[in-house]
């Protein structure tokens, strides 16, 4: 969304939490398969995305970032207070001490199969975004990013397309939360701190928000790098120093992020191979 519309929303992790919550809730409530829960959770999160879009239609830049960050903070409080459902009674479905089993996808019962399952889902998500980028919503978003006035003058319904973008962001974040719930079988409020949203956004800039590769690089930095450092016996806080350096690097020399640099290098290379000028 940052890449397409130039809007900064910091509630992504909170939205993931909602997706995870709804997935768990449905899991214990109804005898539906995991996929159905996942889809319903994604749709529910999309509705939350739309609610978030309301302030976004009036605000942009720093103010939008602040509002969405506050929403994330509010969600963080709610998750911390009510916890995630684990098979208990009542609407919140929380019980202390033990939890009921979680039904994962029928196709993927082992962790390895689940990894493949998630990769397929993530690929579908990327394809979904790419389809948007190439079709009319992508064109409308590009023009909105250029200037809202120009978009309106060209017949783009700015309100519709902004809301649409928020809905998709909610849909994907909700799906991600559901997949996380499916992976762990239970969720903990510590996973969905609003500070994580800021970190994710910063890393999206480092990775290159314009490209799908950038999202992969961001995910690598966010999750795998600290784990690697831990494996090597280095203090994992070192990762934050690397993030900081990466962010400075992105801001100073690589506005399209690391992915932009890689793509640029690849283009240059292929041009050289074809014998043309880069």
């Amino acid at each position, binding site marked *: 969304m940052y890449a397409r519309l130039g809007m900064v929303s910091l509630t992504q992790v909170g939205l993931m939490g909602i997706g995870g919550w709804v997935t768990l809730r449905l899991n214990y409530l109804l005898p539906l398969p995991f996929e159905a829960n996942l889809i319903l959770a994604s749709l529910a999160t999309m509705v939350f995305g739309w609610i978030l879009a309301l302030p976004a239609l009036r605000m942009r830049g720093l103010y939008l970032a602040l509002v969405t960050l506050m929403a994330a903070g509010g969600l963080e409080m709610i998750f911390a207070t009510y916890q995630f459902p684990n098979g208990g009674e009542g609407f919140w479905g929380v019980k202390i001490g033990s939890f009921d089993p979680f039904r994962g996808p029928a196709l993927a019962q082992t962790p390895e199969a689940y990894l493949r399952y998630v990769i397929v889902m993530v690929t579908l998500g990327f394809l979904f975004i790419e389809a948007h980028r190439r079709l009319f919503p992508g064109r409308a978003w*590009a023009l909105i990013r250029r200037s809202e006035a120009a978009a309106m003058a*060209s017949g783009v319904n700015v309100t519709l397309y902004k809301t649409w973008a928020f809905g998709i962001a909610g849909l994907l974040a909700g799906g991600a939360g559901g997949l996380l719930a499916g992976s762990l079988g239970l969720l903990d409020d510590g996973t969905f701190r609003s500070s994580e949203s800021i970190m994710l956004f910063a890393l999206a800039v480092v990775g290159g928000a314009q490209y799908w590769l950038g999202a992969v690089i961001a995910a690598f930095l966010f999750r795998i790098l600290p784990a690697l450092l831990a494996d090597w016996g280095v203090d994992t806080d070192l990762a934050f120093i690397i993030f900081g350096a990466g962010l400075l690097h992105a801001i100073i020399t690589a506005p399209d992020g690391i992915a932009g640099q890689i793509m640029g290098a690849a283009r240059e290379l292929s041009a050289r191979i074809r014998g043309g000028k880069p």
Partner: protein
Amino acid sequence: MIEVQDVTVRFGGVVALNAISARFTAPVAGIIGPNGAGKTTLMNVVSGFVNRSGGRVLMDGTDILALAPHRRSKAGLRRSFQKEQIADDLTVFENVLVQIDSIGGTWSAKRDEVRRMLAVVGLERQADTPGARLSGFERRLTDVARCLVGAPKLIMFDEPAGGLSVAETERLGELILSIHGLTGAQTLVIDHDVELISRICAETLVLDFGRRIAFGPTAEVLADPKVKAAYLGTAEVEA
């Protein structure tokens, strides 16, 4: 035909437009005036970015100020801005296609229309070039092509020749003159370049400090002493 009736705009205590009326009948009409005269404000009222305190704007008899800005575009209103509005990461083709994305029609009809208009402005070979790699003039031409697609009725250009060379301005002038024959649309041009205005505009509205000081056939208007006083700043001595 476009008709402006008693349009008034106030920004706080400043009267940016003071009961402006004009009935544009020529295929290409001009709006001129010194800086701050209210030319762009008038254009912004018509496109819906500025709310008027009073007055109406009729396009072929319907009051377009009642429509939301993006709906005016569907009704046939087009405009360009002082700075061309080309998205850098879309191709020339896509930048033009945006304009007709939200109206009905088959994909092949839309594609053919975009190609036809790109040919009109002379960019058919750059159709797949991303906006970021265009020159200033090519960006301006893409903007013009975007105004031409989707059966426009009224096209407004806000200082289209800003930053262009003499030869490019001449080319743009020819292009603007051909619009009426091509699409049937009426064109309004704001520019500082009096030479361009007098060459392409059959009638011209002159604004100064939010007031209409002259309106009529361009040659007569430009010969008007009041216009010379306000716009060319020569008649203060005579007055």
